[in-house]
């Protein structure tokens, strides 16, 4: 029985001035994985390699147990993709997009597509270029959800959208995940969205995967505290993951169970974890 939607083994991709990998991780079926990292970390490169839009230099990617080296176009029926831009001809009308997709996808569900258009109030006769950013994302999502996809891949799909639209999209993704065979892999800078909905967080930094953990465990594992320099000197160095210095001491991201019980800790958000870990990694690099 196949438990993983995506399996990545030893994936590498080299560009001038940047190297991705080697990456090794799996995306389990039936969950939402938030793929985070700073700009230029390699998130889009990873997603494009999964989709076959770019060619990996080495490694293997399997989607639903099928290696993408023997890329079968029919597999794309099972994968719904939403990029940050819609990539459709600007003069194409919404209705014509549906007609094209009906020809392209063998599992196209026209009624489902029309239902989403009604739900999102997208007019049939409007051209793609006349749609707002939010409407373009909704059209993109409608396409992705209308061909019986089992895997949704979203690359910065919610960037630039207002909170109402983002909330609407998150609700749709959570509905999509009601089916335990459905999986979502979403890369986003809006970490508050992932905090609400993701099951796992995979953190990419400078082309390397720093961790992939369950979101709840991550939030339990790390905590924030603000201490003076003298107190910090008595702490286990292994407990400190990242720090921000200020006039009165330091703000620290710490590993909760390595900290003395007497120190007051506050919960760390995914954003805090990401920022402090990056700062911690960069401080180590400078020290070396």
């Amino acid at each position, binding site marked *: 029985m196949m438990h993983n939607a995506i399996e990545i083994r030893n994936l590498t991709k080299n560009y001038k001035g940047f190297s991705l990998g080697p990456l090794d991780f799996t995306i389990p079926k039936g969950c939402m994985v938030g793929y985070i990292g700073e700009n230029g970390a390699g998130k889009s490169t990873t997603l494009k390699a999964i989709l076959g839009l*770019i060619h990996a230099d080495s490694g293997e990617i399997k989607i639903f147990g099928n290696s993408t080296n023997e890329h079968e176009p029919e597999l*794309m029926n099972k994968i719904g993709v939403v990029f940050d831009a819609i990539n459709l001809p600007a003069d194409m009308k919404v209705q014509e997009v549906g007609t094209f997709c009906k020809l392209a996808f063998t599992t196209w569900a026209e009624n489902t597509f029309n239902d989403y258009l009604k739900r999102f109030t997208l007019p049939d006769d409007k051209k793609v270029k006349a749609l707002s950013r939010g409407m373009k994302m909704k059209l993109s999502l409608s396409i992705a959800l209308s061909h019986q996809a089992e895997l949704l891949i979203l690359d910065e799909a919610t960037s630039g959208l207002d909170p109402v639209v983002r909330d609407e999209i998150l609700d749709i993704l959570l509905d999509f995940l009601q089916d335990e065979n459905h999986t979502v892999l979403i890369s986003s800078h809006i970490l508050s969205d992932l905090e609400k909905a993701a099951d796992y967080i995979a953190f990419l930094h400078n082309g390397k995967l720093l961790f992939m953990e369950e979101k709840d465990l991550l939030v339990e594992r790390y905590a924030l505290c603000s201490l003076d320099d003298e107190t910090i000197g008595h702490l286990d160095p292994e407990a400190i993951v990242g720090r921000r210095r200020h006039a009165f001491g330091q703000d620290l991201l710490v590993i909760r169970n390595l900290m003395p019980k007497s120190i007051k800790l506050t919960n760390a958000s995914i954003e805090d974890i990401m920022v402090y870990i990056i700062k911690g990694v960069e401080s180590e690099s400078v020290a070396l």
Partner: protein
Amino acid sequence: MVGVIAGIAITQGAMIIIPFIFAYIPMILGAISFGYESQSEFPKFLFTTPISRTTYVKSKYCFSVLFGIMAFVSGLAVFGMEYGSLDFALIMAATSFAVPIIFVALQIPFVFEYGVEKEGIIMVATYAVLFITIRLVGKHLNRMMNLVQTMNRINSYLISVAIVAGAICILVVSIHMSCVIVKRKEY
């Protein structure tokens, strides 16, 4: 637009232009198609659907084959009516078929390799080749006519088949090259 030009050609008694209009159209349609795709990065969407890169490449040649067939049929009709000789009409129809095929077969791999930005240069180069060819033919028109008449005597059917087969071979090679280029590309 095609109808207008064809209508003018008929009224002016210059019907032999019609097959060459069909030769010209695929180049323009190809340029428009590539231009639109470049603006919207359409292949990035396309390759997330079940449409393969090979199918995408082959679709770019459809116009040239379709209009090549139309050029052949119209060439056969027009040259047959104009010169009353089926042999001559057959050779000219085969040439009319070959012209759009060969021009598009030369252009498309370059556009895939170097991008739409260079398409203008590629089209200018193609027209330059066309212009130079017409100039040469014009200078040596008598020799060309004698050659065609000689070819007529040999076997016009054989010559026509050779021209069509040659064009199809060039088309197949071009499609193969384009497939290799597009499969290698990253989006």
